[in-house]
């Protein structure tokens, strides 16, 4: 894989993870546990889809086949999607929603923090704006993990269940592959070992404060999203999200 190919691949991973998690949050419209949460969830979703658009635009320029950001978002099938499996997991209860958000936010924040210093100026620019948003996302989801973990008996049980359910999708966040290594060596992406240890430290600290137990270090991990091998959920997400573009392929404007 050349560095140019790796960069395209890497940009799609960033974009797709933002997009799919944003889509999951859109599903919660009108269903949040409080009006303040409606506002916050849509706000986070808006940030994520906005960031996805920025990454898609850059990726589309590099791919240079006449397609644009919308084509990447709305005309690729699941096996071409490169999002983390964690982001496509269903909302379930609010503990799962916030657990998924927190594991992602910790990874997202650390990744963007590193990308701000990327040797690729365009990447650094997009990351700088996104980092401000992700900093807020992480603060918010960390607070919720603590509230739910250290709230009532019921919330603690639900939050621990959520950690247990989601843990198997966290390995993918911090297990590097060729693309990650090429990006790190080129000074474009984060250094994988450092990202992994920072993520573990951050997650452990918040879970401990929240009186929650993290998964085992040697737990089996479900991976594949970064290579287009997804859980059964993604197909349904895309069927809904891409419906109009698929049903009206001749339409050139919306």
């Amino acid at each position, binding site marked *: 894989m050349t560095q140019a190919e790796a960069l395209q691949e890497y940009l799609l991973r960033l974009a797709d993870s933002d997009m799919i998690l944003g889509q999951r949050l859109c599903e919660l*419209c*009108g269903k949040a*546990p409080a009006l303040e949460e*409606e506002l916050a969830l849509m706000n986070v979703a808006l940030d994520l889809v906005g960031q996805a658009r920025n990454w898609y635009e850059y990726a589309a320029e590099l791919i240079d086949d006449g397609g644009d950001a919308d084509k990447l978002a*709305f005309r690729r099938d699941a096996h071409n999607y490169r999002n983390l499996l964690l982001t496509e997991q269903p909302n379930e209860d609010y503990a799962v929603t916030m657990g998924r958000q927190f594991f992602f936010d910790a990874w997202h924040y650390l990744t963007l923090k590193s990308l701000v210093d990327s040797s690729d100026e365009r990447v650094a620019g997009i990351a700088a704006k996104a980092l401000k948003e992700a900093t807020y996302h992480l603060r918010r989801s960390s607070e919720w993990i603590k509230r739910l973990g250290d709230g*009532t008996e*019921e919330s603690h049980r639900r939050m621990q269940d959520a950690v247990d359910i989601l843990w198997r999708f966290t390995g993918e966040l911090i297990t590097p592959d060729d693309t990650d290594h090429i990006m790190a060596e080129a000074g474009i992406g984060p250094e994988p070992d450092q990202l992994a240890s920072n993520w573990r430290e951050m997650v452990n600290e918040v879970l401990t404060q929240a009186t929650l137990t993290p998964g085992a270090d040697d737990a089996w991990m479900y991976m594949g999203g970064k290579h287009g091998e997804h859980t059964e959920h993604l197909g349904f997400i895309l069927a809904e999200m891409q419906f109009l573009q698929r049903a009206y392929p001749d339409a050139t*404007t*919306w």
Partner: protein
Amino acid sequence: MYAQLVETGSKRLKTKEEMSPQEREFQEKVDAEIKIEAKNWMPEGYRKTLVRQISQHAHSEVVGMLPEGNWVTRAPTLKRKLQLMAKIQDEAGHGLYLYSAMETLGADRDEEIEKLHQGKAKYSSIFNYPTLNWADMGAVGWLVDGAAIVNQVVLQRTSYGPYSRAMVRICKEESFHQRQGYQILLDLMREGTDEQKAMVQDAINRLWWPSLMMFGPHDDESPNSQQSLAWKIKRKGNDELRQMFIDQTVPQLEFLGCTAPDPDLKWNEETGHYDFGEINWQEFYDVLKGNGPCNRERINTRKKAIDEGRWVREAAVAYAKKQKQRTQAA
């Protein structure tokens, strides 16, 4: 209009002589266009009417997120998706500051929401209609937000200070939503395929009459209007507002190249206004009573969100309490 048929508790206006000195002083202040603030004395009927109207308005913002939520997961492009998400987020924000304005009157947000879930409180009838194709997202912005703005622009001058100030802020955002909605329709009509153009006309056909119903019944069928107008909670009658909306909307409709599902709609040279056909009032009252296409779904969705979120809210309260104790112990 997001508040329809607000009960005032009085079917007849009191004369100045019938008023107590306090009531007279209050009415003179209102007549002199001096804003009433939360700490000022106010007649109980005025307070109750405002609580009903502002809570209805807030409920409408929140329930109004649902017909749009129906399409936010299926928006066709990144740009349209982001626009729709931002609009929904604004509506949640409007709901929040309207509930806050309502709470300045001593009402409780949770209690008022409970009334909504029990079917005791109303919200705008328009949100009981389904959104069936993508162009509905344009038509809702253009017609529904458009009708709301006609009412809300006038409400910026409503006599209760906190409500009036909330309206000023809301109007700015609503105007933006309306322009965005119209742009969706305009783009589809100008550059869309025949199928897309058909979506636009279909959306207008379905939402036209329900939008006109948003202004409420005729003034002579609206027993509470007189008191609301005297208190300057309302500033203009339902029929006048409806006519304003039609007069400003028909040219926009023609510019789109679409038609309204009303054979009687035509320009009247003599009056300088558009004439239009009679609204199906039976349908209006049916929807208000709970028999619209989506009444059950809308309330069930809201009720389910609040019911299923109870443990989350309880956890937040319990955690805050623990944190407070820890701070005190430290």
